[in-house]
């Protein structure tokens, strides 16, 4: 082949291969994305950005195609208050899924795998607009019970009385019907119920510990083993990392919170959130609550615990779950929390 022709051929090949190959690949991606629109969500550890983007738009009834990928560690993806399956996101592995929202509204998507100390901050929002031609929004949710009852979630709630030992549930004793009312049991703390029972003639002849057994029995009868099991699962996945498997507040990230609390105390003394002595006022980082502490737990009404889970800790480090869990899921979680105080699996 004459030298000039060979040179021309070589140059053509060079342009085709060296420029054409990568450009062709990039073009293929562009065309593929344009033909079928997809929203790409990158999951990163919260200090690196969390979910990117953190806000997505969708239309009720129309498919929302998502391409999810983790850019660092194992993450998870779930949309709160929906039945969409949870998706694990392994580093670098792209997962595609399509969601269809029946109802308009704001949905929260969360990371479901503990990815770091600020894992609980890793959330995003899907803003689902009504379908074309429809303007009606779904009815607003009922306000949480603590608001109706006027409970102050941040006020201390020490129990005036506590049992000498962990009460086992006692059932089968005839008690006035009001003690079994769901409204009553959700609004009153176990200590308040104990005081009411103690002064009720039906408990004449029982000692204090036996009355605690009745209280535990009422708590057992207000739930079921299936609900407790679901509550246990929710707790293990979402709460145990901070509050600990044993509920004592010694979860794997508890030390991080303790460090943040210490820093927050010092900062709070300057910013006015806490006294110079370090006492917290419910708005500075705290160590995770100890659910095995009877003085604290038995003075809390279920509605108060429900409210804390819904609203979060307002700067204490406790996340809010009101947009992530359904109302029933939160009640199941609350019912499970009492197993740290009462032997609810025992009894009839």
């Amino acid at each position: 082949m004459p030298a000039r022709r060979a040179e021309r051929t070589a140059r053509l090949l060079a342009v085709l291969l060296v420029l054409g190959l990568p450009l062709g690949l990039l073009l293929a991606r562009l065309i593929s994305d344009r033909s079928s629109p997809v929203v790409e969500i990158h999951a990163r550890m919260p200090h690196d950005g969390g979910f990117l983007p953190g806000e997505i738009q969708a239309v009720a009834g129309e498919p929302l195609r998502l391409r999810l990928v983790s850019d660092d560690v194992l993450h998870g993806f779930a949309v709160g208050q929906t039945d969409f399956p949870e998706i694990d996101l392994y580093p670098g592995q792209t997962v595609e899924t399509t969601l269809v929202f029946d109802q308009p509204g704001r949905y929260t998507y969360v990371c479901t795998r503990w990815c770091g100390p600020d894992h609980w901050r890793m959330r995003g929002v899907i803003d689902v607009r009504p379908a074309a031609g429809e303007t009606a929004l779904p009815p607003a949710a009922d306000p949480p019970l603590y608001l109706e009852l006027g409970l102050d979630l941040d006020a201390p709630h020490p129990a005036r009385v506590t049992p000498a030992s962990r009460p086992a549930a006692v059932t089968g004793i005839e008690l006035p019907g009001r003690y079994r009312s769901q409204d009553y049991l959700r609004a009153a703390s176990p200590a308040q119920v104990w005081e009411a029972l103690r002064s009720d003639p039906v408990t004449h002849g029982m000692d204090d510990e036996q009355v605690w057994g009745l209280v535990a029995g009422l708590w057992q009868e207000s739930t079921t083993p299936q609900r407790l099991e679901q509550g246990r699962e929710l707790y293990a996945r979402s709460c145990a990392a901070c509050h600990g498997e044993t509920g004592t507040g010694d979860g794997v990230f508890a030390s991080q919170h303790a460090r943040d609390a210490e820093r927050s105390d010092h900062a709070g003394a300057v910013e006015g959130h806490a006294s110079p002595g370090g006492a917290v006022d419910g708005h500075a980082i705290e160590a995770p609550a100890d659910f095995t502490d009877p003085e604290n737990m038995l003075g809390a009404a279920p509605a108060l615990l429900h409210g804390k889970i819904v609203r979060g800790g307002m700067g204490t480090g406790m996340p809010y779950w009101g947009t992530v869990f359904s109302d029933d899921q939160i009640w199941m979680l609350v019912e499970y929390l009492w197993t740290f105080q009462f032997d609810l699996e025992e009894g009839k």
Partner: protein
Amino acid sequence: MTKLDLLRFPLIKTLLRSRWPQFLVRLLALAGFVLAVLAGLLGTPVGSRSFAIVFVWILCWALLMLAAVPLFGRGWCSVCPIPMPGEWAQQGALLGPLQTMTARWRLGRPWPRRLRGIWMQNAAFVLVALFSARVLTTPLVSALVLGAFLLVALVTSLIFERRAFCRYLCPVGGFIGLYSQLAPLELRVRNTAVCASHREKTCYNGSLEGPYAGYGCPWGAFPGGLVRNTSCGLCMECLRTCPHDNIALNLRLPGADLEQRRGRGLDEAYKGLIMLGSALAYSAVMLGPWGALKAAAFAVGSLPWLGYALGFLTLVLGVLPGLFLLAAAAGQRLAGRPLDRRSLKQAFAQNAVALVPLGLAAWAAFSLAFAASSLTYIPVALSDPFGWGWDLFGGAGVGWTPLMSGAVPPLQVIVLAGGILWAARSAVDVQGGRAALPVIGFCLLAGAGLLWLLVG
């Protein structure tokens, strides 16, 4: 010594003399290189899913250390894509010379005399090694480094003559040249008398004449004077320009170059020590169980990284050279030779020949570990080079599985033992008798360290 001249086989001679096979292989390599850079810049930040990391630092590096260098010496250099754009710009052509030898827009300066040798390559390797925990695992950083190689090679070609980047700057070429002395392949002339009587020396000056058109040795070497592989890039240009059919590509006994005493300088000695030290450091950081060390090496710019960097520099530029100097001096003393500065310098440089087989064995053993455990990344990176969820060849779903995990430790022991024995033999060749014991002791110490890190 028995040698087999491969160019006596017409097919091999035709394939190597023709520019097309080499050009096509290099072009393919360049396309892969460009793809790697793009994957690093635009693709996933997860290293194990990125073409940039998997193909460059896992596949190509393992092939280099386990096959290309031990078997073909500087064979990789003959198909390396990095200098290609620079060569095209310098020569004004992609294949052979057209009407003129070089393009108008290059300066063609000779490389400064003071910067000759491989000191610059030593420095370049140490510089990259300091950041290697990020370079080898983070696609974006890797892409920037590879892109920088390409840019530096291009600029160098526009300012200086020939393949100055390859000969004097490339950090990879530095150790390929050193270890090419062990390869069973060499390019030499058949008859030096023919070269002596050839006035034009077209192998060095180039030629525009018909069937012998070609460039003067891009590596700045005179083929007639080659006695070692270190500065011959196997580009085959001299094969094209020699009008007397005087070039031979010989199969020979491995390590024949180690017997050569000429041309051994401190730069090569330090290269051997830098490579040995780096193998030790990489084994500790990349394959060791010390999380704090990994974290320090990764956190570039932080105080722990500074500590790691200082430790690394102290090891490769201080501790190892210091120990080796002591060993060389002790050998001199045992042999009854003088200990003046000049003699010590010579002993240091000559004894460093033992570091060549030891160093390659160290890198081969290290590469066995990461290659075997990372092979299953290859189909994934090929099918989804950018980590965008593609599956071009059906391999994107292959899960990670370490392969041959039972076979790797025994292989590493065999390779390291082989390296130590070869190093000991080389030391005896240099010093003779018991005077070689201190250097052998040094090699044993280094080898034991590697064994402990890799297998222990």
